[in-house]
């Protein structure tokens, strides 16, 4: 493994807080949720593993304690329980996950049952090929045919989110920004209150 400090992009003398912050930012960047069903998901997963190992190594070195981090398996790949109905859907799903898109195309093309699951799998196939407009359409059809399935809704939501805006990695420190904004808003409100003779936060 490479030097864990350079993997996280921190110096050896960085504080624990700085290391945690660096880890959080990298974890957000390479989190499986950002690579949901992405053809490069395995590369992102490798990066994630590197980052986790680096963080573990630093923690062990500094405090002598182990740290175990487990991230969720990506929700896009049908982790919701239950079978996929017939074996052929399962075969098609496996082909897509393995990157064998030609085989998936043949399998799905030969199916006569073109219900919600078929549309969902066609959407996944289109997504892998980079055919984004088709992917959106298939996912929407699947969600319309079976509104109860969370996977289908999630896929539609994912496409909608990525259609609305463009998200460079540097924009993805959303949580901490929101917290900072909330905090500073409350502090401002408290100052305003005090200027007018009142008090919002008694201890400040």
């Amino acid at each position: 493994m490479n030097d864990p400090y350079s993997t996280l992009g921190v110096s050896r003398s960085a504080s624990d807080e700085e290391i945690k912050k660096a880890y959080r930012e990298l974890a957000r960047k390479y989190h499986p949720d950002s690579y949901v069903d992405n053809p490069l998901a395995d590369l992102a997963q490798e990066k994630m593993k590197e980052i986790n190992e680096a963080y573990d190594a630093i923690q062990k070195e500094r405090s002598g304690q182990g740290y175990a981090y487990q991230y969720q398996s990506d929700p896009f790949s049908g982790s919701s329980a239950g079978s996929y109905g017939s074996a052929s859907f399962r075969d098609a799903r496996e082909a897509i996950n393995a990157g064998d898109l030609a085989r998936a195309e043949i399998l799905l093309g030969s199916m006569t049952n073109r219900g919600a699951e078929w549309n969902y799998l066609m959407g996944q196939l289109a997504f892998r090929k980079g055919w984004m407009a088709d992917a959106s359409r298939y996912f929407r059809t699947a969600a319309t045919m079976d509104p109860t399935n969370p996977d289908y809704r999630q896929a539609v939501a994912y496409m909608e989110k990525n259609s609305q805006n463009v998200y460079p990695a540097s924009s993805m420190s959303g949580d901490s920004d929101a917290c900072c904004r909330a905090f500073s808003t409350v502090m401002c409100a408290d100052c305003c209150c005090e200027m007018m003779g009142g008090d919002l936060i008694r201890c400040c």
Partner: protein
Amino acid sequence: MYGYVRPAKDELKVKEFERFRSAYCGLCETLRRRCGLAARFVVNYDLTFLVMALSPPCRTQERRCLAHPVSKRPCLCGDALLDDAADYSVILAWWKLRDDLCDGTFPERVRARAAMLFLRRAYRAASVRNEAFDKNTQLRLAELRRLEEERSDSIDQTADCFAAVLTNAAEKTEDPARKRLLKEVFYHVGRCVYLLDAADDLPKDIQSGSYNPLIFRWGLTEGLTEPVKEELAGTINVSLNMALRALDLREADEWQPILENIVSLGIPRVRDAVFSGVWKKRKRKNTPERSGERI
């Protein structure tokens, strides 16, 4: 070429802009050296993007050039990568001109024929040196032409042909993981270029009755309507996000912030300009798109 893949210059740091310019100058200089003086006009922003994505960290040398004779400028040092990128530029420019020859208006056809006369020798040499890229480009464009003749209503299938041409620029990358991610970047950027070009050409195509996938996909008769703009912008955004996620996996070198700027800020601005009609007006004011992008 198309010039859609450009940075938001005002959002780049000065050193980043200078690096970008050195890549552009490096490509231009390599074109001159390798393909002849006439080939210099083939230099464009789109291929500069490819050069930056493929290149190792920046090594420059000071050079004076014909277009800027007053002072020397840092220019990316020639290497095998720039040589290939120069060949790809010539090959792509050649086939675009062939396309203009078939589909263009009368003045466009005249210009294309003249340009092809200048470019013929350079194209012949480039296509011999990079036979696989040339053959693949021809194959994909033939597929595109077939789809056009069938009046295909699939924007994805038509865009795929064009996008696949650009992915071949990454074919010579040695590291398999890097090759995959670069192909993904080039695919989605190429897809955006195709869709933007279709949107840009829409009024002209409606008038002349030429094929345009947007016409058949949405039954357009007058130009982009608001709902169509929204859907088209949406699908372009999805591709831009996919390109960004792939770029995130690329090594964090000096080119990275420039590439991110282009994909997350530059191309969206061009998209807005194309949709509002400002892009076409700007093109009519400046020199023809094939060259002279002021930098």
